[in-house]
């Protein structure tokens, strides 16, 4: 346990000792804030137009039900935040294993009596914690607004959990890609490519038979997020994301064995 904690501490020091972490945090927070305020601006304009079109002054009864904070602001912002994760998370994960390989410190790690399992576990834990931090920073504005709109903390928690699990799944993909290469560029690009392919398979339904399409629907990441955004936490979806992370950890662990055998 002690070596694992030492590595977790070192990983945090390395992460926040480089500008990439701060740049990523700032970029995601900035993009989310811009998208959020843009949607909020549009929502206010629509609201104002409806409210003033009655000729009797400002009358909120004239606003139809479908023009609401949830459908006009929160849901689109959450969808965009999911896509932002797809773009940003591989930038976080690309260096995690690949940088160790490229500068030769992976050999140092292994010979300091850390087992490959401990190395994988520590790196996944720290990356997951950073993704959670990134999401928390980005979630503040939309959460505050929607809380004012009366959505409720439980619903908000469900949406945040869904986004977090989605982020962790994308992070798992990125970490596996980083574990099999010494190039950060290759790790980032392959992370984007694999996560993008796994994002949604509905576009391929027209070309596939029903069984294959149904199977791919089960494997895809984005459809699993759907129920969370509606405020429903389904156990099967939580199990899916947990299994996704575990398989990724096993693959990253396998990269160490592969290196030992090395052809």
């Amino acid at each position, binding site marked *: 346990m*002690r*070596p694992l*904690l*030492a*590595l977790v*501490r*070192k990983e945090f*020091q*390395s992460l926040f*000792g*480089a500008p990439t972490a701060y740049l990523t945090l700032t970029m995601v927070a900035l993009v989310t804030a811009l998208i959020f305020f843009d949607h909020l601006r549009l929502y206010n304009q629509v609201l104002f137009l409806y409210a003033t079109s009655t000729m009797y002054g400002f009358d909120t009864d004239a606003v139809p039900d479908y023009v609401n904070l949830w459908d006009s602001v929160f849901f689109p912002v959450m969808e965009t935040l999911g896509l932002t994760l797809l773009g940003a998370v591989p930038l976080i994960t690309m260096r995690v294993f690949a940088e160790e390989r490229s*500068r*030769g*410190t992976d*050999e*140092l*790690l*292994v*010979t*300091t*009596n*850390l*087992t490959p399992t401990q190395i994988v576990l520590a790196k996944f834990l720290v990356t997951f914690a950073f993704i959670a931090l990134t999401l928390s920073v980005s979630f503040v504005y939309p959460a505050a607004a929607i809380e004012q709109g009366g959505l409720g903390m439980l619903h908000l928690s469900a949406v945040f959990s869904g986004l977090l699990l989605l982020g962790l799944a994308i992070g798992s993909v990125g970490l596996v890609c980083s574990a099999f290469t010494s190039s950060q560029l290759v790790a980032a690009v392959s992370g984007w490519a694999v996560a993008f392919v796994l994002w949604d398979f509905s576009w391929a339904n027209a070309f596939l038979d029903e069984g294959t399409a149904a199977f791919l629907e089960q494997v895809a990441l984005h459809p699993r997020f759907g129920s969370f955004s509606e405020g429903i936490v389904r156990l099967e979806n939580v199990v899916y994301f947990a299994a996704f992370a575990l398989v990724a950890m096993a693959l990253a662990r396998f990269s160490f064995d592969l*290196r*030992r*055998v*090395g*052809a």
Partner: protein
Amino acid sequence: MNAAQQAQDEPDLAIRARGLSRRFGPYLALDALDLDVPERQTYGLLGANGAGKTTFIRLVTGFLLPSAGSITVQGRSPATDPSAVQAGLGFVMETSRLYEELRVRAFLRFCGGARSLAGAELDTAIDASIERFRLEPVADRLIGNLSKGYQQRVSLAQAFLHDPPLVIVDEPTSGLDPVQQNEVQELLLGMRGSRTILLCTHDLHEARSLASRVAVLNAGRLVAEGDTAEILGRDDALSLFRELPGGSPT
């Protein structure tokens, strides 16, 4: 009798390799190596670039698995029990294979923690290592901002931190200026006799001044082994490093 049992019967050996081979695809990096490294000696592993020195070190540390043959380190097999082997060894890699974004003290704290040191024991080990390798002026500086000489001292400090019975030192003076080379060699001289040091180098002067015995690898094969003065004092000593008539084994 298996390799581990044989090693237990020969307790004075720090490393014992028998028929040790390692292949990378078609390239045979080590070819049926038989080698005994005695305990409490500085043992030089010599050879030109590509002779198989680094591959041998990686087999000792358990970083790689052998393609054939066996190896035991202090009676344990790094192939089947790498954690036990790694607990008893320190490893100094070539300069700059360090976490440059960490400060020296934080890096040593990590290395100690990773070797299960904690609390007062860890603090004492860090302070002792900083003093032994004369790192006081740079203890709170970023490793990336240090000179190569200081970086190599940091590397030595982490390897000796947990007082291991076996330390592997890979090209310790590579890329250093003459003053820095002298400093590192003096530090290694100070460690002589207290533990086994496997010194991997292609610098014959360094081997002469530090090692009591040497083995010379050429194209993955052991071409000479014995007392340093005897091996390196031969008239044809340089020919041991030249390409073998058959070329690299494949």
